[in-house]
């Protein structure tokens, strides 16, 4: 087992390097950050511009820039932002922003699983019933409608027209006239979380319901389910022990892929809800050509994706002993 994990980790090194090279080159050829920074300043001199270029190391050839970046990376240094708060360290920056991202994503995934698994099972058990048709139609809609569209509609209805929830952000900016919701910081965050979490939960839940339903339908046809019933086991044991364990594999795959891509998918969600997470930071960094921040988040996304892929593979072996990790 540990040998397998070590081997898998070794395989990750070339993959990781490849991804870094592609993103590094793609960002560097996408524009000139110094021009972007100084574009609105009519009084800037050529010399000052050149100083900036030299300061950021952008005068070096591309491969030299990459090797400098790499050597810094191995020391755990992701560089400093070009623009944010006078060159804040990227590690600190990501540390500040990752909390809200994980809060939103993890709670949505948790709710989605809690709801989707029983709903999918009931839908499969009552195949073609009115309930099943309602569930599958709703799930299909949830799968088809993009999160940003659902998000905008939800904000419009519940944030704007009804005014029940704030239209965006993580927390109320307190001032003399405005305080926290119910006067409590936690309650205030929960209040802000409601729309984004609900929308994201629905978006995550929809495909899981369809997955659970179809894989349950497949499993329920198997002889071992009939055999479990023939042994006098109750319907609850047959479904939740014998069938569910077998039906979970595709769901584990999906959850693994989702968590791996959690940060990569966050930009859109977080932009719509004005959520101060890594995703929105990524969008801002891209708009300003803030290379170190873009690269830093890419590194984190890559590591997370690879890490969750490994976790997913290990989970398979746990759920289904026929899948051997060796």
């Amino acid at each position, binding site marked *: 087992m540990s040998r397998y994990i070590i081997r898998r980790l070794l395989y990750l090194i070339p993959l990781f390097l490849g991804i870094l090279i592609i993103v590094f080159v793609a960002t560097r050829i996408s524009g000139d950050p110094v021009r972007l920074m100084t574009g609105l300043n009519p009084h800037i001199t050529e010399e000052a511009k050149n100083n900036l270029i030299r300061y950021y190391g952008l005068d070096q050839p591309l491969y030299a820039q990459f090797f400098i970046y790499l050597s810094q990376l191995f020391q755990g240094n992701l560089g400093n932002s070009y623009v944010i708060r006078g060159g804040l360290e990227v590690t600190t920056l990501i540390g500040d922003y990752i909390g809200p991202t994980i809060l939103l994503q993890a709670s949505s995934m948790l709710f989605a699983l809690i709801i989707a698994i029983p709903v999918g099972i009931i839908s499969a058990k009552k195949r073609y019933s009115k309930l099943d048709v309602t569930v599958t139609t709703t799930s299909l809609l949830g799968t088809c409608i993009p999160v940003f569209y659902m998000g905008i509609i939800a904000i419009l209805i519940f944030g704007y027209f009804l005014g029940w929830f704030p239209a965006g952000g993580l927390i109320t900016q307190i001032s003399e006239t405005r305080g926290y919701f119910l006067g409590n910081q936690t309650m205030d965050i929960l209040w802000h979380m409601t729309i984004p979490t609900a929308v994201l939960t629905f978006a995550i839940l929809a495909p899981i319901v369809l997955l659970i339903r179809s894989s349950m339908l497949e499993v329920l046809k198997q002889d*071992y389910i009939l*055999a479990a019933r023939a*042994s*006098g086991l109750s319907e609850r044991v047959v479904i939740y022990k014998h069938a569910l364990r077998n039906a979970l594999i595709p769901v584990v795959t999906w959850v693994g892929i989702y968590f791996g891509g959690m940060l990569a998918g966050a930009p859109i969600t977080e932009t719509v809800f004005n959520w101060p997470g890594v995703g929105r930071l990524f969008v801002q960094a891209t708009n300003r050509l803030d290379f170190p921040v873009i690269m830093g988040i890419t590194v984190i996304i890559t590591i997370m994706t690879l890490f969750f892929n490994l976790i997913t593979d290990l989970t398979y072996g746990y759920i289904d002993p026929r899948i051997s990790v060796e």
Partner: protein
Amino acid sequence: MVKKILKIEQLKTYFYTWAGIVKAVDGVSFEVNEGETLGIVGESGSGKSVTALSIIRIVPSPGKIVEGKIIYKGENLVEKKEKDLQDIRGKEIAYIFQDPATSLNPVFTIANQLVEVILRHQKISKKEALEKAIELFRLVEIPDPEIKIWNYPHQLSGGMKQRMAIARALASQPNLLLADEPTTNLDVTIQAQILKLMKNLKKKLGMSMIFITHDMGVVADIADRITVLYAGRVCETADTKTIFYNPKHPYTQALLTAVPSLILKTEKLAVIPGSIPNLIKPPTGCRFHPRCEYAQKYCAEKIPDLIEIEPGHKVACLRATELNLKSPLGGIKNK
């Protein structure tokens, strides 16, 4: 008078599919006496398995029992509630499936699956249940039971898996065992071992058994009486010797002719022309008439009743008495 443990009357189990109503079992009646083995014989699609699944009421959807009585020890199982049926399944009536590779749950250890079934019907501790499971493994002659029990099904061979499935079925000493082609998916040598084991166990535990098969050789070996099914209906019921040496239904005779035999020394294997009919629109009258070499015009019009032509010998053929059929094994003395 022998006591009847199971009596099935006019059982009808239909499947409500998109294409139409499949009348898989359409008026089947038979009885099982206490302590005997009843063989149910028929081609694929004759309704053998559906009949057995109906007995413990686990016919998968969209199948439904629409009519008939299943009298087990004087109680009609068709009218029982699901909760009460769960107490009967596995404890009173157990089931062994055809394919041991698919009838064991692949993701749980054998110990887990056996202990679960034992605890379902017996009020004992987990530790006692585990001891009992190992005991059962000895009963079905699995070597090294203490080690094998911690395996997953895929780590065992086909024969071992079927022994394990038998052990699970016997976990609570059932009175009636439904064995649905338990040897069909096994090698011939393993088949013989499993058959021997089942015969011994039946004697040892004093059970009654319904043994479903399409293999005339196997059924001759194990059954006391035989019921022949065709297209969801009973053709003929009699004791094993009568079925083999004095069949009265043309279908039974045809089945016997199709058995490869060293004694008969036939050059070519005989086949019954045609195939089992579509059960959404079964043939009118006698369901076998399109393939029957003795069929008359009236065979397509009148449904033959199952008539007792001599004590213990029932036949559903309009021409049963006039035909005077000969068994292909006719002149051979029985062994």
